[in-house]
């Protein structure tokens, strides 16, 4: 992929500057304005139920939150601060141990103040997602503080 300076800076920041992303070991597989793809390698620490070998939904949400924010930044033309307003997760099937997690996120609608994102997470087959998500982000660059 040939990257714009904005996208190059984004990748650099995501991989090296976000402490929690670093701790988890997430990496960017692909990054474009239309969509992003990130990956989280499997670790036993991700389990939410050791008896049944299932990955904790919380780590899936963390992956989606990271991917969705990255999708917003990749879609915007210039770097600007953003904040997550809300995020919804729909768990489609259990996430199994020994397999990593992939996330694709797409900022499908950009308005002057808000960006809407959808995302999916899968393990082996993108057409069989373990989770689907919808979220909304606030852009900060155009905001004026409202006096109340």
């Amino acid at each position, binding site marked *: 992929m040939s990257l714009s300076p904005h996208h190059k800076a984004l990748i650099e920041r995501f991989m090296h500057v976000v402490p929690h992303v670093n*701790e988890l070991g997430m990496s960017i597989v692909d990054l474009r304005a239309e969509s992003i793809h990130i990956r989280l390698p499997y670790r036993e620490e991700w389990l939410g139920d050791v008896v049944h070998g299932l990955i904790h939904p919380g780590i899936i949400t963390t992956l989606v939150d990271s991917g969705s924010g990255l999708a917003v930044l990749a879609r915007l033309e210039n770097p600007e601060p953003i904040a997550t*307003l809300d995020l919804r997760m729909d768990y489609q099937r259990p996430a199994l141990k020994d397999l990593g997690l992939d996330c694709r996120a797409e900022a499908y609608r950009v308005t002057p103040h808000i960006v809407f994102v959808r995302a999916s997470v899968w393990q082996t087959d993108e057409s069989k997602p373990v989770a689907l998500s919808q979220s909304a982000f606030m852009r900060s660059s155009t905001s004026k503080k409202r006096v109340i």
Partner: protein
Amino acid sequence: MSNVFSEARRIARESRNYEPLTALMPYARFIGVKLLEVDGQTRALLPYRPSLIGNAQMPALHGGVTAAFMENAALMQLLLQLDETRVPKSIDFAIDYLKPGRPEELYADCRISRLGQRVAHVSISCWQRSPDQVIALARGHFLLTSTE
């Protein structure tokens, strides 16, 4: 029939020792969740550590960590309050972010708003410094397995 989850719950209820329960949920242990008992209610606590940061400039906690902590609090609440023999399965989870998370400890209080035969609805409030300084509200539906 004796079951590891029932045993962990018995120990938690009798001696306020939540270690056997978190041992069954490695991700809860990974992010460092602690449980407290306040006025007969279970309260979840997430001690601060720098690797939980998602925005280094502000600095603010990773939104995914806040969400994961809250969802985990709901799951642990269900395990402690009901007689489930495994971790309930998350059906969906939705979070509204009201304020950025300061680089300080997080607290979560959960309420089981509806308990059906198969599904529980849990409302979760996440705060810092004092319970009226809410930084995020969430709710989730969880599939119960004790009827299986």
